[in-house]
C-alpha cells in the first residue's frame, strides 16, 4: 500500500507520535555527520540522503548493555529489567533494515535472545529509500536494493517536495495508514529502476572452502590495523563480549578484528594473526552464514569500506578471491 | 537523607603524609571525617588511572599527598609524581572536571597540623564544588 505524504504530514504525525512513542531518527551534528539519536522534536529529524555513520543496529543490539545483576540477597542473579516503551525508528535505510532481518534469523529463531527480541517487538521501523547510493554501496550484489523493504514496517521515498510511503506491515498500516492520500497508479515508483543507481557490483562465490588455506588472506589482511570500525559499524555484525563489572554483567560489542578476539584463558588464540581473523570475518559473512541461513551476512551498505581507516574494501576482496 | 557529605579519597605516601596524618591523630587535631586514606609506599606509586577510577566510582574529591621535594624516602618518587600529575591535573580541567576535585599536597611526617588544616579546607572546597554527579558511574 503506497500513499503520498507531504513533509508537513510527516512532521505532524511524528509530533503526535512523540507523546506515546520514543522516536529514533537521523540527526545531523555539525561537522560530525549523521547519527541516529532519540528525537525530542520532529524538526530535529534529518531526512536528507547522507548516510548515518552508525547503522540502526545499535538500537536493537546496543554497543553495551547490562543483562544480569546480583539480586538484593547478594547471592542469586536476576535479569536486568528491560524497557517496554513503544518505539518508532524513522529514516533507517533498506540495507540497515535488511540487517535486522538477518539478525532476526539468528536471534529470533532456534535461539531466542530476549533482549534483542524485546527491542524488535517494541519498535516500528520506517525506512527511507536511497536516492543517492555512493561508490561504497553494493547492496544490489547482496540481494538488496535501494528500495528493499525486508526488516521494515514501512518505507518512504523522496518524491518531489514530499514523500511516498509504502506501508508493509499491519503494524505500520495501523499507525501510519491515516496520513497523506492514496497514490495514483502513474505516481508509483519503479523500484527496479532504482537498483541501477548502485554502481558497485560484485560477485560472491557459492562457497569459499577451496581458498581457506590461500596466502591471499595474508596479503589482503596486511593493511588491517585490527580496530573495530568495520565490525562495530556493520549492520549485521553481532559478536559480543561478556564483562562483569561491579556485580553486574554487561554485554558489549566485540569484533573478530580485535587481537583479543577468541583469545582463550590459557593464552592460546586459535586465530593468532590478522590473517586468520580477517579470513574469519570474510568467511563468516560470505560462507558460514550462507551455509547456515542461506544468505550472505552482509547487506552491502558499504560502511566498512567507507569508514575503514586504511580503506580496506571487503567487497573487492571477496570479488577477487582466487576461487 | 541527611545533608550531603562529600566522599574524598586520599592516596598517601607511607613515609611522610601517612605519618603526618598519624601525627595529627597523636596531637588530637580535629578535622572532618570525610576522607578515606589509602596507604601507598610513595606518591610515585599513584597511577593516574586510580584517580579516574575514584572519580567514576563516586568519589567527590581525590587527594594525592607525598613528601616534600627532597624528603622522598625513595629520593625521587615525588619528583615523578609531581610531573605526572601536573599533566593529569591540567588535562582533567581541560576536559571539564572541576579542578577542586583533584588535588595534590606535600605533607611531611612533622606536619600534623598541616594535614588537619588541609583536610578541613579540602572538605570545604569539595562541599562548594558539590556532589560529583556528572562523571559518576550511573547505576542503571
Amino acid at each position: 500500500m503506497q500513499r503520498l505524504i507531504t513533509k508537513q504530514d510527516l512532521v505532524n504525525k511524528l509530533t503526535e507520535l512523540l507523546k506515546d512513542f520514543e522516536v529514533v531518527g537521523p540527526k545531523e551534528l555539525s561537522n560530525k555527520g549523521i547519527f541516529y539519536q532519540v528525537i525530542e522534536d520532529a524538526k530535529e529529524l534529518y531526512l536528507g540522503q547522507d548516510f548515518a555513520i552508525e547503522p540502526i543496529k545499535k538500537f536493537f543490539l546496543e554497543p553495551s548493555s547490562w543483562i544480569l545483576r546480583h539480586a538484593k540477597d547478594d547471592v542469586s542473579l536476576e535479569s536486568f529489567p528491560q524497557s517496554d516503551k513503544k518505539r518508532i525508528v524513522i529514516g533507517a535505510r533498506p540495507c540497515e533494515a535488511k540487517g535486522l532481518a538477518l539478525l532476526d534469523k539468528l536471534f529470533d529463531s532456534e535461539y531466542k535472545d530476549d533482549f534483542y527480541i524485546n527491542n524488535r517487538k517494541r519498535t516500528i521501523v520506517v525506512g527511507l529509500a536511497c536516492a543517492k547510493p555512493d561508490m561504497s554501496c553494493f547492496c544490489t550484489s547482496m540481494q538488496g536494493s535501494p528500495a528493499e523493504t525486508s526488516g521494515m514496517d514501512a518505507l518512504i521515498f523522496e518524491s518531489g517536495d514530499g514523500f511516498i510511503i509504502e506501508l508493509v506491515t499491519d503494524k505500520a498500516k495501523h499507525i501510519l495508514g491515516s496520513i497523506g492520500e492514496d497514490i495514483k497508479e502513474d505516481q508509483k515508483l519503479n523500484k527496479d529502476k532504482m537498483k541501477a543507481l548502485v554502481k558497485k557490483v560484485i560477485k560472491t562465490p557459492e562457497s569459499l572452502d577451496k581458498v581457506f588455506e590461500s596466502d591471499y588472506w595474508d596479503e589482503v589482511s596486511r593493511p588491517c590495523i585490527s580496530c573495530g570500525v568495520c565490525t562495530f559499524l556493520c549492520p549485521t555484525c553481532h559478536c559480543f563480549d561478556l564483562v562483569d563489572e561491579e556485580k553486574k554483567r554487561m554485554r558489549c560489542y566485540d569484533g573478530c578484528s580485535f587481537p583479543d578476539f577468541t583469545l582463550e584463558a590459557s593464552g592460546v588464540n586459535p586465530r593468532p594473526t590478522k590473517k586468520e581473523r580477517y579470513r574469519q570475518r570474510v568467511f563468516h559473512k560470505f560462507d558460514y552464514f550462507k551455509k547456515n541461513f542461506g544468505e550472505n551476512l552482509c547487506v552491502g551498505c558499504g560502511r566498512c569500506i567507507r569508514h575503514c581507516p586504511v580503506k580496506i574494501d571487503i567487497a573487492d576482496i571477496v570479488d577477487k578471491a582466487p576461487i | 537523607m541527611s545533608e550531603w557529605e562529600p566522599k574524598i579519597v586520599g592516596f598517601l605516601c607511607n613515609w611522610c603524609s601517612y605519618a603526618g596524618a598519624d601525627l595529627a591523630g597523636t596531637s588530637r587535631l580535629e578535622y572532618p571525617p570525610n576522607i578515606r586514606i589509602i596507604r601507598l609506599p610513595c606518591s610515585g606509586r599513584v597511577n593516574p588511572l586510580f584517580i579516574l577510577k575514584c572519580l567514576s566510582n563516586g568519589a567527590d574529591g581525590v587527594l594525592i599527598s607525598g613528601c616534600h621535594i627532597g624528603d622522598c624516602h625513595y629520593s625521587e618518587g615525588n619528583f615523578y609524581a609531581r610531573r605526572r600529575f601536573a599533566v593529569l591535573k591540567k588535562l582533567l580541567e581541560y576536559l571539564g572536571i572541576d579542578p577542586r576535585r583533584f588535588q595534590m599536597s606535600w605533607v611531611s611526617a612533622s606536619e600534623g597540623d598541616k594535614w588537619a588544616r588541609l583536610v578541613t579546607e579540602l572538605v570545604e572546597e569539595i562541599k562548594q564544588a558539590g556532589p560529583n554527579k556528572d562523571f559518576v558511574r550511573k547505576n542503571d
Partner: protein
Amino acid sequence: MKIGVFVCHCGTNIAGTVDVERVSQAASKFPKVKHSASYKYMCSNPGQNLVKDAIKKHKLDRIVIASCSPSLHEKTFRKCVEAAGINPYLIEMANIREHCSWVHKDREKATQKAIELTRLAVSKVSRNKPLEKTYTTIEKKVLIIGGGISGIQAAIDIAFANYPAVIVEREPSIGGRMARFDKTFPTLDCAACILTPKMVTVSQSEHVTMHTYSEIEEVSGFVGNFTVKIRKKARSVDINKCTGCGACYNKCPVKVPSEFDMGLGKRKAIYTPFPQAVPNVPVIDRENCLYFKTKKCGICKKICTVGAIDYDMKDEVIEEKFGAIIVATGFNQFDHSVYGEYGYGKHKDMITGLHFERMVNSSGPTGGKIIRPSDGKEVRDVVFIQCVGSRDEQKGLPYCSRLCCMYTAKHALLLREHNKDSQAYVFYIDIRAAGKNYEEFVKKVQDEYGAIYLRGRVSRIFEKGGKLIVRGADTLSGAQIEIKADLVVLATGLVAQKDAPSLAQMLHIPYDKNNLFTEAHPKLAPVETITSGIFLTGACQSPKDIPDTVATASAASVKALGLMVQDKLAREPLIASVNQDLCSGCLACLKACPFSAIEEDEIEDRKLRRKRTVAKVREAVCTGCGNCTAVCRMAAIDLEGFTNTQIMEEVETL
C-alpha cells in the same frame, strides 16, 4: 576465603569515640568475613592470643586488624598471625585510631568512618597474596673508592676485621689531600708524620689490595653482589720489578710543574708525586715524556737496572666482585677565578690555602720559605681571605666549607712562626670554630700570634707599585680598610670532585645540586646511601676536617662489615614484579627507577614465536617504591603488597 576482623578498643583511645562493638558487628556482615571480634588491647598478649585462637577455631586465612597506625603494630601482628600459621603478608590494618577516633569527636560519624575504614581493609586483604622473604648471598670483599685518609682508614678497619679490602686510587700514590698538608690543626701535628704510618700499614696489610693510578669504569649488581670494572692506567713502570731506587727520575731530562705542589715546584716526566709515595713506584707522564713525544731519549729505560720501565704497557681493565662499596673520593678546591673583585685569578701573588700548605712545608717547593711567587721575595704583610666561594649563593657555594676558619688560623700561626716580622690580616664573615680545642686555637692565633682579624668582605684587589692593594671593609669599626699586601691567601671552599656526578650515576647514588653525594638520612643514616651496600665517608659527602673524615671512615667500615658478617641477606618481599607476557619492553620503568632495580631480560614470546626484550626486576635491589608501576602503560609491572588489584579493590569499595 575466610577473613577475620579484629577491632581494638585501645582502652578508651578508640572506644571513647568509636562504637567498637558496632564496627565489629558491621564487619561480620562484609563479604567473605567469617568472624569478627573486639578486644580491649589487641596488641597485648591476651589480645594476640585471641587472634591466634580465632584463626585456629574458625580456620581463618586472612586477617584485618582495626586498631592503630600500621607503623606501630603491623610488624607485631604479622608475627602474631605467622605464629598461628598464616602467611604474615595476609593481614591488613585499618587505622581507626590516628586516622579516626583521635581526630573526630562526633561518635556517630566516627563510628561510620571506622566501619568504612575497616571495609577498605577487608576489601584490600581479600586481594592479598602470600609472600615470602627472599635471600641473597654476599661477596665478602669491600671496594674502597679513593685512597686519601678516608679510604686509608676504611681499609685499615676492614682489614683489621680480617675481611679483604680493595682501594682504587686514581693518582699514582695513595695519600690524597692530607699528604699535601704541612701541619694539622689544632694540635699542629705534622701531617706526614701521622699519615705515613697509616699508608705503610695499608701497603703491608695482607688483606688490602691497592690499585693506584686506576679508575672505576663500570659498576653493576647490587648489595652483596657488585661487579666492578677497574681501569688500571698504563703506568709504564712495572710495579713488581721496580725497587723504588729513584734513578730514573733523577736522570729524567724533562721538568714540568708538579701537580702535587700545585704548580709551585717542578717534577720530572717520570716521577713519584712525593717522596713518601705508596707505592713507591714512579709513573711516566706520557704527555710530557720525550720518549713518547719524539721516540727519542729513553734514558730511564737505559738506567733502570731491573728493567722495570715498559713503554709498551697498556691500560688494563680488570673485573672484580664486591659485597659492599665505600665511596671516599674526597674534594676539590673552589675555583676563585670567578671573582672579578679578586682579579679573576690573574694576580701572581695571590694563592690558595693549599698552595700555602705546600709553601710552608719544609720539604715543599720553597723549602718552607713563604715567598711571593712573582719575585721570590719573602713576605711581610699577608692578607688571608676566608669564605672564598663558600657562603656565596651568587657566584659560589651556598654552604659553609667548615674548615677554612681553622686552616686559615693555622696558616696565620705558621706565617708568624716562619717569618717573625710578618703580619697576618684575616678577613672573615664569621669564625666557625666548633670543635674540640678549635676556638682556643683561633684565640691563640689572635692573641699570641698577633693575627689581625677583620670582620668584613674584600671589595677589590689590584696591583699597584708591586704590591697587592686589598681594599675591604671592617664592619666592626665601620672603617674602610686598605692593605698593601705582599701576598694574598684565599681560603677557597671545598667542592665536589668534577667527575662526582658521573661516579654517582655509575653507582646509582643520588647527589645534590652541589654534586656532593647524598646520604640516606641526614641524621640517622649519615654514611649510608639509599642504594644499599654503598657507603659514604669523608668530604665527598660534605666538607669535613680530618677527625670527622676518619670518624666517618670507621663508621662506613662498620656498616660494610655488618654486611660482611652476614651469611645471607634477607629482603622484604614488598617489591615490584613484572608480568613479562604483558610487558612491551618499552623500558619506561627501567628509566624511571630511582634505584636501577630494573634490568632488561629476553624472553621467548610464544605468541609471536620470537625472542623479545622485556623488563625484569632485580629483586635484591628493589626497594618497593612502586614508581615503575605508575609509569607502566600496560600495567605489566606491579608492586607486591600494594598491587593494582588491591588498590582498585579498595577504590571499588568506597
